[in-house]
């Protein structure tokens, strides 16, 4: 049978950025769990991701998926110094806000709020956008993420200087760069292979 586009079931699309849990509905056929080889399953890295249509779709190219996921985990979860987890998540949320990925922004705004305990500031980023005033340190991180996300990049020495003045060392600045860069990867997959939906019952 020729490959075809999937028509998502009836759902409510989110119309604003939110920290609420969203679903994601694929436009292309994910692998069926029972059709997945050991290689496909290993490429998920976390076995529980077999429940996710997003990861079962990406598992069609297992080597790319596994390398993507291991890159992601080190950028965001490596606890060795650098940028605090909350601010890595802030860079991810700001990038997703600027590119317009409601799904990615929801996940990483939730994480940023959880780790920073600054729910109001995170919500202001979602509601007002990337020019919201979140205090100078967060403003510097958001501005750097946005400049690097623009195509072509507008990231320059002035962004590095501002991050240094805000107290970031070079490892932390490298973490901002990697977190924003990674969400330029993630946003493009999430936005173009399916769509977000308001979770039933939420």
């Amino acid at each position, binding site marked *: 049978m*020729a490959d075809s586009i999937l028509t998502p079931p009836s759902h409510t699309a989110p119309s604003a950025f939110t920290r609420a849990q969203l679903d994601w509905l694929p436009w292309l056929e994910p692998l069926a769990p029972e059709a997945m080889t050991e290689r496909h399953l290993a490429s998920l890295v976390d076995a529980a991701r077999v429940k996710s249509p997003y990861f079962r779709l990406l598992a069609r190219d297992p*080597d790319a998926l596994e*390398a993507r996921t*291991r890159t992601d985990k*080190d950028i965001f979860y490596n606890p060795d110094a650098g940028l605090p987890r909350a601010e890595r998540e802030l860079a991810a949320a700001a990038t997703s806000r600027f590119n317009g990925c409601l799904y990615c922004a929801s996940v990483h705004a939730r994480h940023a709020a959880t780790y920073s305990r600054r729910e109001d500031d995170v919500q202001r980023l979602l509601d007002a956008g990337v020019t919201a005033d979140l205090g100078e340190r967060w403003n510097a991180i958001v501005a750097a993420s946005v400049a690097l996300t*623009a195509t*072509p990049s507008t990231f320059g020495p002035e962004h590095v200087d501002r991050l240094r003045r805000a107290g970031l060392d070079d490892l932390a600045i*490298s973490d901002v760069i990697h977190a924003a*860069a990674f969400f330029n990867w993630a946003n493009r997959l999430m936005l*173009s292979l399916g769509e977000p939906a308001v979770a039933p019952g939420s």
Partner: protein
Amino acid sequence: MPGTDADVIDALVGITPGSPLDAIRARRPEARAHAQATYRALFTPDKPGTVSAQERFAVGAFVAGLHGATAIANAYAARLTETGASSALVKALDATVAEATTRGPYGQYPAGPLTRENTAGPSYRMGAAGRAALGPRLTAAFEHVHMLVFHPRDAAPPALQALLDAGWSTTDIVTLSQIVAFLSFQIRVVTGLRTLAGRP
């Protein structure tokens, strides 16, 4: 572009062993190794399936060209030439970069409070000369790539249908999407780290 085993990001940034950036990248060893593993998976895969090396490097050169990342684009274009790409293909690639380059991200939002953030911009369609030089598969890919690079929030099922109609399978589309998305990462890491090192 160096050989497949040399770290591509290190090479493009100009990171030498023992330098400050070498030490910084060493603090995130899994990210460093797996960014390189992603490059290998997407550009020199063990099992290339039905996406050719020529298609992979043509898309790579196009993505980097659209970003205005000249040195990176030249590196991918050099690998494209090594695949035996015709001079007509390379010329069409250069012409398409020149014609299609704009500034992003722009695009539309669902109706509601975000409507005021809608930003207009072009949906790129290849001209007849480009279509003839690239053929139907790469023509469809380049039109999709332009959307992914500059206005990804405009993505919708008809864009994927256009790829299917041009002969890209579902699995091919996953690989194509990963190439564009991964390069959107790689180019920004290179740009960011070069700026951090004081040589933007």
